[in-house]
């Protein structure tokens, strides 16, 4: 690549000095791109290529077609449900917390505590988080026992920490604080003048929220939902630590496939990972588009 660039440079402008410059410029970034090729591009490309090959290495679409197996479709659906539910609930609860903190006229210490705590909690995940929830909502967990003493048996009522809602409750522990961190600046960017202007024109509080604040916040809220969806969709450690392998979401299935070829077809395993990358790509594209839209007003 360096060669080509210098060739072009030579043709365009005064030969000597420019040649040296362009050569240098390329060389400066070559290590980074080599690294990216070796450890980002090659691993992901090899998975993509593998998902279009059969065991002999010939081109095939069979693996993609085989993704429609019920067990795989169910894993994708469950993954999307967990991600979707925690994204929506997380944005709702986190948004209410951010609103309360920024616009609730609360004493300053609330914010001084909540922001750093959100930073920590949004990074508190994996095995410790799973264990904290086992100690809280597991069969002999603190809250479970407490509620039982009060005459309410969670597990008799159909709750199970190692199932859909248990995993979702656990994911919310890192989802909600992330929302607080993201949406706090958005609520802060709502100018008081907009509200004053609306009120001086006779708008009520709820009318202001429906017609001014929410439309302005919508792109930010949507981009938060999308970000949280991706955040939960790729999560592996927390789910693994919480459920072992019992809850069949896509990351857990990929893990089992790495360990023991549970699908009995390595190439179908690559296709499984390819599907995940595809969904994450969609998430990222949607996210950056919404980000650009929300930057219009909230800067």
């Amino acid at each position: 690549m360096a060669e080509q660039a210098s060739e072009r440079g030579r043709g365009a402008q005064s030969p000597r000095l420019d040649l040296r410059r362009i050569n240098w410029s390329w060389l400066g970034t070559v290590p980074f791109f080599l690294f990216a090729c070796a450890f980002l591009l090659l691993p992901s490309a090899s998975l993509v290529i593998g998902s279009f090959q059969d065991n002999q290495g010939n081109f095939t679409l069979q693996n993609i077609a085989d993704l429609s197996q019920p067990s795989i479709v169910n894993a994708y659906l469950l993954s999307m449900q967990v991600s979707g539910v925690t994204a929506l609930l997380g944005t709702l609860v986190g948004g209410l917390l951010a609103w309360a903190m920024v616009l609730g006229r609360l004493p300053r210490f609330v914010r001084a505590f909540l922001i750093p705590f959100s930073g920590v909690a949004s990074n508190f995940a994996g095995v410790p988080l799973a264990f904290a929830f086992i100690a809280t909502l597991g069969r002999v967990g603190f809250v479970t026992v407490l509620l039982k003493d009060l005459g309410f048996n969670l597990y008799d009522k159909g709750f199970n920490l190692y199932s859909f809602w248990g995993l979702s409750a656990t994911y919310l522990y890192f989802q909600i604080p992330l929302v607080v961190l993201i949406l706090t600046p958005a609520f802060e960017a709502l100018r008081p003048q907009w509200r004053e202007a609306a009120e001086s024109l006779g708008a009520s509080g709820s009318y202001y929220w429906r017609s001014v604040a929410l439309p302005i916040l919508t792109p930010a809220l949507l981009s938060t939902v999308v970000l949280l969806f991706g955040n939960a969709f790729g999560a592996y450690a927390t789910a693994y630590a919480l459920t072992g392998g019992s809850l069949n979401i896509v990351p857990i299935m990929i893990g089992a496939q790495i360990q023991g070829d549970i699908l009995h077809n390595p190439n179908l395993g690559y296709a499984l990972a390819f599907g995940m990358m595809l969904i994450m790509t969609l998430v990222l594209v949607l996210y950056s588009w919404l980000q650009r839209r929300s930057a219009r007003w909230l800067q």
Partner: protein
Amino acid sequence: MKKRPSLIAWLFIVLGTSYFLLPLIATFLFSLRAKKDTLGFTAYQRVFEDSSFYATFRFSALMALLTIIASMLLLVPTVYWAYLRHPRLHRLIELVSLMPFVIPPIVLVFGLIKSYSRPPVILVQSRGLLIAGYMVLALPYMYRAIDAGLRATNVKTLTEAAQSLGAGWPRIIWQVIVPNIRGALVNGAFLTFATVLGELTLAQYLAWPAFGPYLARISQNKAYEPAALTIISFALTWVIFGIVLLFNSKDQQQTQFGGTH
């Protein structure tokens, strides 16, 4: 307009805070019950007497350190150079730094194993591959930290000033650029440290005796020690973020996503 605190706001904050504090309180109480009928720190004692606690912690801390050093050696000159000479390349680097978001850790480790476990290049037994994987996980926020640091610095002027005083490239980067973005670097370094320290996915599938797999193993086999370890991990995360916050200026808010959750 009303000036008193809103009751609903208080309600939300109290409910939210209790959701966040309950698991911590529950875990803490649980960790104190290792000895029958008495509350005490026996579980913590047992953790601190366990030699594999130290061994795995040391291993992960070392990996984190090496990841930080390697990431900075790779990224600081690259991003600086792109800022100075190649604005268009800058967009491309930014795009590459977003790629780890598309490749979650479980997919990344799958791809690494597929690519590097057979000839021509066999790396799966090398620590280098683990560190490279961690560098990929750290890339988005390491890049953002460095980018934010350079954005807040007048790169061109500083470089020209240094050059006119006769400094060469290594000297410019090490003695002029790095000191100017020190806060951003510390920020990125501690986020990386927090991520790598308890990381499970890569360490587990590349079969390294790291802290994350140790936590997972303990939590499957023991009752009270994992509770103690959870509290210790949470305290550690606080310490790390305390340091980050000390260095964090208002305009460089860091949010991490898609990491090792």
